[in-house]
């Protein structure tokens, strides 16, 4: 049972295999060329045979005409008849033709001799048997030089008639007509045509088989290359088996190159996997070290306080002084742990909020600026009805806070938000000192900070959140020129109903 899609493939030449197309093309070309040549040969053969027959008819008429003039003047009907019969219908000759009829007519069209005298009495006007015969009779009587007439049909009933007028002392005496049948030639021509067509048919079959073999051999490596590329598309590069190379033609070279590319890709993929693994390990190590370092710092102070308090359990003054320190230290640890959790759990997109919520950030940032002399330029071109993940608000807040912290007096913050379907774009730029190029690569690493009191988790969290939404973040910064963060997050699919 053939499925519909398979049937469609069979009837749609565009989806046919190259091997089939090439072999069909070769077969078609061989067939077309073969039959064209065959047709030309057969046509030429037939024309030659017909011309030869016409010449024969003229020759026979002329041989009769040699003696006919004198015999006609003598009214020697018997000699006329004998010359006609002996020249034209010699028994036992295999002239390759068949005489349909032969006659000698006088200038008035009276029969002087006729091969079939019984039906064409000597001395009487020749009476044509049909319209064609009448037409030919008139042409023959009008002829004043040798001419070949025919009925123009390619069949067993076709004929060639040699007409030779008779003259004596420039006086027109009559005409010799010899009509030869093409029946035997027709058979000959048919035999030739049969042989030619059979030969061509054999060639076509051989050509088709060769075409199929050649095209299969040609296409085989291409099929292997295609399969290999399909595997690349699926990302399965490691279990690829090389395309066998037999020839060193274009396809062979393609196969060799493909094999090389595949081998290199597989190696690259392995290397990438190794690099990814080691990067993971490095990140893990960095996180672990960061956690250890950040948690360890307050822990040392806390342990000191606890130790001092244990030694002086009744010193109320000491308790009043140390408890806020312990509290502060523990909060610091809690903050670090919370931030880590936010960063690591960022796969959860969380609630969505109306995009208008973003504009409220402006007041928060103004408060954050406090007494500092910083201008803020706010542009929101996004669709007011758009609902966005709540994370985006946090991302924008983090970036804006960073800018406030880094800017000296007299700086300017530009906030721009707009849509470029399917993305929501957020640009936060400042004209601060910029990021030194040597630390650009570490910008989004956890626990990396240039601030004295920072945790180094802000940008790491931003990065993780954007990644979890399938978005991208880019930083353009030059020392002394300022910094711009570009954030693009796909949000259109999240439009609230």
């Amino acid at each position, binding site marked *: 049972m053939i499925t519909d899609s398979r049937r469609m493939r069979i009837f749609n030449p565009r989806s046919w295999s190259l091997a089939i197309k090439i072999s069909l093309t070769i077969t078609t070309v061989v067939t077309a060329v073969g039959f064209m040549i065959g047709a030309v040969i057969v046509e030429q053969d037939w024309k030659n045979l017909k011309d030869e027959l016409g010449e024969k008819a003229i020759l026979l008429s002329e041989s009769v005409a040699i003696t006919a003039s004198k015999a006609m003047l003598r009214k020697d*009907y*018997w000699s006329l008849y004998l010359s006609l019969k002996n020249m034209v219908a010699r028994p036992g000759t295999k002239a390759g033709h068949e005489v349909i009829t032969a006659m000698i007519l006088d200038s008035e069209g009276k029969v002087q001799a006729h091969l079939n005298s019984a039906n064409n009495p000597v001395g009487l006007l020749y009476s044509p048997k049909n319209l064609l015969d009448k037409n030919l009779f008139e042409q023959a009587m009008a002829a004043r030089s040798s001419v070949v007439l025919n009925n123009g049909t390619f069949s067993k009933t076709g004929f060639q008639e040699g007409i030779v007028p008779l003259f004596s002392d420039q006086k027109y005496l009559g005409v010799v007509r010899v009509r030869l049948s093409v029946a035997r030639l027709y058979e000959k021509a048919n035999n030739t045509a049969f042989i030619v067509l059979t030969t061509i048919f054999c060639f076509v079959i051989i050509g088709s088989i060769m075409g199929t073999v050649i095209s299969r051999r040609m296409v085989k490596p291409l099929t292997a290359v295609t399969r290999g590329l399909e595997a690349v598309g699926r990302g399965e590069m490691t279990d690829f088996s090389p395309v066998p190379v037999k020839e060193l033609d274009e396809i062979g070279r393609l196969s060799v190159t493909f094999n090389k590319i595949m081998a290199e890709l597989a190696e690259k993929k392995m290397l990438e996997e190794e690099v990814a693994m080691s990067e993971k390990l490095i990140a893990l190590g960095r996180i672990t070290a960061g956690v250890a370092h950040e948690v360890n710092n307050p822990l040392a102070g806390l342990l000191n306080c606890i130790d001092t308090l244990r030694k002086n359990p009744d010193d109320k003054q000491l308790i009043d002084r140390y408890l806020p320190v312990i509290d502060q230290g523990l909060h610091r640890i809690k903050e670090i742990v919370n931030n880590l959790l936010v960063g690591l759990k960022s796969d959860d997109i969380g609630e969505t909020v109306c995009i208008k919520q973003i504009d409220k950030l402006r007041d928060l940032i103004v408060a954050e600026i406090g007494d500092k002399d910083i201008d803020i330029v706010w542009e929101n071109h996004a669709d007011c009805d758009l609902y966005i993940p709540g994370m985006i608000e946090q991302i924008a807040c983090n970036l804006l806070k960073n800018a406030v912290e880094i800017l000296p007096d007299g700086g300017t913050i530009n906030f721009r938000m707009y849509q470029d379907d399917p993305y929501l774009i957020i640009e936060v730029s400042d004209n601060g000192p910029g990021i030194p190029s040597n630390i650009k690569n570490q910008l989004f690493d956890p626990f990396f900070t240039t601030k004295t009191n920072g945790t180094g988790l802000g940008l790491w969290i931003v990065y993780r959140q954007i990644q979890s939404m399938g978005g991208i973040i880019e930083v353009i910064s030059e020392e002394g020129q300022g910094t711009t963060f570009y954030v693009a997050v796909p949000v259109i699919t999240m439009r609230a109903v």
Partner: protein
Amino acid sequence: MRLIYLIILFWTTPVYADNAKPPLRFGLTAVVLTENLRLLDQWSQYLEDKLGRKVHFVQRKSYREVMDLLDSGSVEFAWICGFPYIQTREPESLKLLTVPVYRRAPRYHSYIIVHHNSPFQRFRDLKGRTFAFSDPDSNSGFLYPLVLITERRESPETFFRLSFFTFNHAETVQAVSEGVADGGAVDSYIWEYLAIHRPEITKKTRIIKKSPSFGFPPIVSRTGVDTDIVKQMKVVLEDMKNDTPGKAILAQLMLDGFGDYPDSLFNEIRAMANTIQRASPKYPHTSD
């Protein structure tokens, strides 16, 4: 020594004489079947053996040509037709030698033949038709049908639509059998010969009239030929029926033999010729 000379002389003389004598020439026409060359070779060989000198058969298409050979002395003997034989010649240039015997008599007929499928039953049915004569100097092939026409007070030109000569009895039969002529006049001896040797053409013909019997075409000698030779030839021909090789040749010729008959054997032909001559003086005189 003389004896040796004599022996050489007598031994060589006949050979020398044999070669020195000019060959006897025998004129032939279509009366006999000139196509059968082997038969003529056998016959000439037979005559050479009997006569002791060369005999050449000289073949001609028409009686007229054979008669010209006789007149010019180009042949010594000839087998001619009764019609030219009885015609007047001044001076007479030939002499009756012997007459073939056919079916026990020195006589034959003229057959008027038509195509076997034709509707013609009588000679008069052929009026306005085409007709094949054998030879203008033939009794059976021309004189007899001419008499039939003359008796109707007509001429070949008025009686037939068209007529022609084939100069050969066998070809007259062929002309009729192939429909070239509606009717034809032919020697009964030739027709019967063809009925055995070429039945396919005689079968296509039908005899609608058989003439009274006439003297068989005779063999004549030219006047002026050595009478001894003439006699020898006559004896040899008339003796053919008496020896085996001669009989074999006669059998092939379908003849019983040759016989000595008087000139009166040809009186019927003479009478017909006179009839014609009276009706139309353009025809030759007969020798009464």
